[in-house]
């Protein structure tokens, strides 16, 4: 098992994207952390440092994008939110393809504590028209999906994670990934576990435990939160008939919210949402925080059982 942090995949993607001379990288004094510095080292002339000014970063990026450049701007997930209204009115509303990456998403971020742990980014960016919202599960998928953003004519928000978790893909399997298409990692017919980000590896672990109880779980990596892969959800509603969503994010409005909305409007069926239960985080190690805040392996196993019981 290889451990990897998805933020490293962002840095690697920028180096690939550099082949396009119009790609520019915008920093707000967190290049060491988001890994945009990997690009800065090779292409300083195409890296623009703006200091600690996230609101400024959003509109500078928009200006560049309307003049033929392809800006990739990053900071911590939480600090992209400092410029949320700038994203809303200055980027999403005019539909300008600015690509924003928020690293250090979720409480798994760890000892920095609650001020650095965004648990609402997926919800707020998902609420904006025109936005693509990604939350890949490992470094390889982050790299692969980020390079696909170049083909998109819309703005995007990608959440990456600070800390290492088990790698999900290899250099071959990752090539199946497409923005907007959920990845069925394991098929099953008793319960569908839809996960994103650092929780995908936990979903795979849970499916093994459930298998010992003769429960067959489908495991899905929902790396694209928006546009949501409704076809995949409909398929799972028919084959499994119940769901568990897991995300290192508030259970309000994120992956669980998106899947619930889709199901209730299409094929209503039981769903249990695992995530941060309307609570701010605290300092601690990433994995112990996931356990403390209701995203432990046993919590997910229990959620799967109760989803099945509610069928």
């Amino acid at each position, binding site marked *: 098992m290889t451990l990897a942090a998805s933020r490293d995949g962002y840095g690697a993607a920028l180096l690939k994207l550099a082949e396009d001379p119009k790609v520019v990288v915008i920093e707000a*004094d967190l290049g060491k952390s988001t890994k945009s*510095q990997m690009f800065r080292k090779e292409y300083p002339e195409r890296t623009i440092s703006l200091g600690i000014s996230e609101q400024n970063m959003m509109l500078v990026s928009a200006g560049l994008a309307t003049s033929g450049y392809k800006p990739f701007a990053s900071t911590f997930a939480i600090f992209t939110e400092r410029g949320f209204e700038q994203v809303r009115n200055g980027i999403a509303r005019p539909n300008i393809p600015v690509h924003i990456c928020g690293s250090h998403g979720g409480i798994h971020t760890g*000892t920095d504590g609650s001020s650095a742990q965004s648990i609402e980014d997926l919800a707020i960016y998902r609420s904006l028209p025109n936005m693509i919202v990604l939350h890949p599960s490992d470094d390889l998928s982050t790299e692969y999906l980020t390079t696909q953003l170049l083909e998109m004519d819309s703005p995007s928000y990608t959440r990456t994670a600070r800390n290492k978790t088990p790698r999900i893909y290899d250099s071959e399997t990752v090539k199946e990934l497409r923005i907007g298409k959920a990845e069925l990692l394991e098929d099953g017919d008793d319960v569908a576990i839809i996960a994103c980000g650092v929780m995908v590896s936990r979903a795979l672990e849970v499916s093994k435990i459930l298998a010992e109880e003769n429960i067959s779980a489908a495991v899905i990596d929902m790396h694209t939160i928006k546009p949501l892969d409704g076809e995949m959800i409909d398929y799972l509603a028919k084959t499994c008939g119940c769901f568990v969503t897991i995300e290192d994010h508030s259970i309000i409005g994120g992956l669980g919210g998106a899947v619930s909305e889709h199901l209730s409007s299409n094929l209503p069926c039981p769903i249990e949402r695992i995530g941060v239960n309307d609570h701010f985080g605290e300092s601690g190690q990433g994995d112990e925080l996931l356990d403390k805040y209701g995203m432990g392996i046993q919590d997910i196993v229990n959620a799967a059982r109760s989803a099945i019981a509610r069928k």
Partner: protein
Amino acid sequence: MTKDAGGINHLADIDELRSIATRCRREIVKMTHRASAGHPGGSLSAIDILVALYKTRLRIDPNEPDYPERDRFIMSKGHASPAIYAILNVMGFLTVSDLNSYRIMGGICQGHVDMKWTPGVDFSAGSLGMGLSFGLGVALASRMDNSDRAAFVMLGDGELQEGQIWEAAMAAAHHEVGNLKVIVDCNRIQNDDFMEKQLRLFDIPAMWKGFGWAVRECDGHDFNEIISSIEWLDSVKDRPAVLIANTVKGKGVSFMEDNPAFHGAAPNDEQLLQALEELS
């Protein structure tokens, strides 16, 4: 200072302040080492100022951390929490075992200063650029109450890049908020690198002057200068006042001094030993 004392303590013993600062520096490197994380650089640059302010000026009470007429100290660069925890330990708000909980799950010393977790902390920081606006609110409330409570705010020089700082600066000057006192910890380094390389601020004193503030500079590691500058801050009554304290990031630990690598990185075992040796 305790709540019974009023005004600045002119008799502060400089040697004692120095030795308290050394004790705090030792705690700062120990805390970050234990947590294998945290921000030693900006804690070490700020600590002399904090020691002077807490020991000679702030009206606070460890037995009643929330008593309403206390002065408010607002640490806007909330990542320098080890410095705050160290001085709050000296002042009797925190125990040494509280310091051991820095960045530990369930511990009261959170990664960034947090008023909901730590007695003696009056502002939840961690997101840069917010503390001056909060301090303005606190100062306005004090004025409307006809109280002599002061609001002291510490900002980082990198933090001055946030637009919100200047929104607050503008408003404080317009409203002639004479009980708002700001200290900028000018250590010339931000997260990724030297400010000179990341984003220059050409003339920091002139920027504040242009916004209508009373401005003074000092050496942020010279206790005599710090204390007379705090007196000066208090003497300005008709407008907000800012002290530009020139400091060295990582001050006191040779390999951390002026080194951007120790903005947000903890010393390892070997480095800890060396640091403690230098700080004896």
